[in-house]
């Protein structure tokens, strides 16, 4: 019963955030601010995760491919597809659910508890449009970009690790990268990135916006939003794979 109530409120929040902005300039500024917060603010962690993720993929794939019959360039092929299909969109978005999601939930929760949202309402501002919509749109714009960067860096990290560990030369790696490349995999990764971006931004926004109580409840809302986002990402990952692959 509680789940249905919460889902209903979530849908209503999404519906209500579409209204005419009071001042487009202020909304644009807020959108750019959110793009900076979500995009630039998460870039560091995305770079670190992606490079190591690609490097570890190369090492572990090489460890498992012991047959002399399989060309070494296959390692690059496997790393490429793993990074594109799963690691870049899913792993990075799960990390972003923690980084970005907790920030969104705690920011909105703090604004609710300290009556800043009420202050905006009384000024005549639609707070869902002003506070929630720019976060969701910014996430939809910048998170797919981060996923693209992550995929590139993941493959680069794998290439670097292959060379450093003397597993395969960069020439072999590049050859493998171009072998049997399916552009559809990039499309699939981008579909996942957009779906996950929406989950990462809207779920924490919901938990933060409707928080009631004080500091303890903000913490709880933040944790809950991350847990729910992660579960939804994994569920959506399965559904998308089942539908699109």
């Amino acid at each position, binding site marked *: 019963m509680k789940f249905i109530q919460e889902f209903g409120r979530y849908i209503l929040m999404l519906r209500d955030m579409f209204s005419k902005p009071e*001042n487009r300039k*202020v909304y644009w500024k807020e959108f750019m601010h959110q793009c900076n917060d979500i995009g630039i603010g998460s870039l560091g962690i995305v770079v670190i995760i992606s490079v190591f993720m690609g490097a570890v993929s190369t090492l572990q794939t090489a460890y498992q491919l012991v047959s002399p019959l399989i060309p070494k360039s296959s390692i690059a092929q496997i790393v490429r597809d793993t990074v594109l299909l799963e690691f870049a969109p899913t792993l990075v978005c799960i990390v972003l659910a923690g980084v970005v999601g907790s920030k969104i939930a705690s920011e909105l929760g*703090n604004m609710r508890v*300290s009556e800043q949202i*009420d*202050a905006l309402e*009384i*000024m*005549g*501002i639609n707070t869902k449009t002003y506070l929630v919509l720019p976060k969701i749109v910014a996430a939809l714009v910048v998170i797919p970009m981060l996923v693209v960067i992550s995929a590139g860096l993941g493959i680069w990290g794998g290439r670097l690790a292959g060379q450093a560990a003397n597993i395969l030369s960069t020439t072999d790696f590049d050859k493998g990268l171009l072998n049997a490349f399916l552009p559809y995999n990039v499309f699939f990764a981008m579909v996942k990135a957009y779906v996950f971006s929406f989950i990462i931004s809207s779920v924490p926004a919901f938990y933060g916006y409707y928080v009631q109580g004080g500091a303890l409840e903000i913490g709880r809302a933040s944790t809950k939003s991350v847990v729910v986002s992660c579960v939804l990402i994994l569920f959506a990952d399965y559904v998308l794979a089942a539908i699109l692959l």
Partner: protein
Amino acid sequence: MIEVRHIKKGFGDKIVINDVSAVMDDGKCNLIIGASGSGKTVFMKCLVGLFRPDSGSILYDGEDFTNMDAAGKKEIRKKIGMLFQGSALFDSLTVEKNIQFPLDMFTNWTLAEKRKRVDEVLDRVELRDANKKFPAEISGGMKKRVGIARAIVLNPKYLFCDEPNSGLDPQTSLVIDKLIKELTQEFNITTVINTHDMNSVMEIGDKIIYMYKGDKEWEGNNKEIIFSKNQRLNEFIFASDFLRDAKDMRMLEQTGKIDNDRNMEDLVR
């Protein structure tokens, strides 16, 4: 003028506001007083539209705010300024930007015009030097003054103050009360104040509404309250021996039995 007609508000089975009617006058400080849980915060939230009353209506200069569509409510809200109990300043913005925010949102003024207006209100609340500071860097009293500055920057017709003196020392409370009173008279604002502070009641209460368990128990002004025979009101407002003594003194003053310009040095001697 704000007119409240028979509003009721409850949450589940609990009735918080029970058929309250009142009129908030222009150019006056209209105080809502009452013990914790008496319903005064819910009453104020109904007035500003944060809660929708279960029945009854609220009229802003004759216009029914309760049953207005979203666009109409938005227009009324542009005429409302509100000071919150915790000031509700935006943490990420400086004092100056906090005050400028309503101007950014609702005017097409140039930056120079906005800055001029911000400086004017900062001067009015005597906070010119704090304009570049963040809310976390200023005191509670300063936050309240910034809250007032933000509330008045668009020249509101109605000003709502929720517990403007909570957490402030008596001297700062006096400054805030004086400022609210001056602004109310200067701009002929309809000011509604939710307070527990007895000093505010006696100093700026042009009109006082006492709420008791969701009902309007008493209505009057700061002169009439001294002579009120309402037992609940007297128990609430003159709760301590000190306040009862102060009440007796004020009664003697107002009946002309002692000089209100009494020389304290003579009394001490």
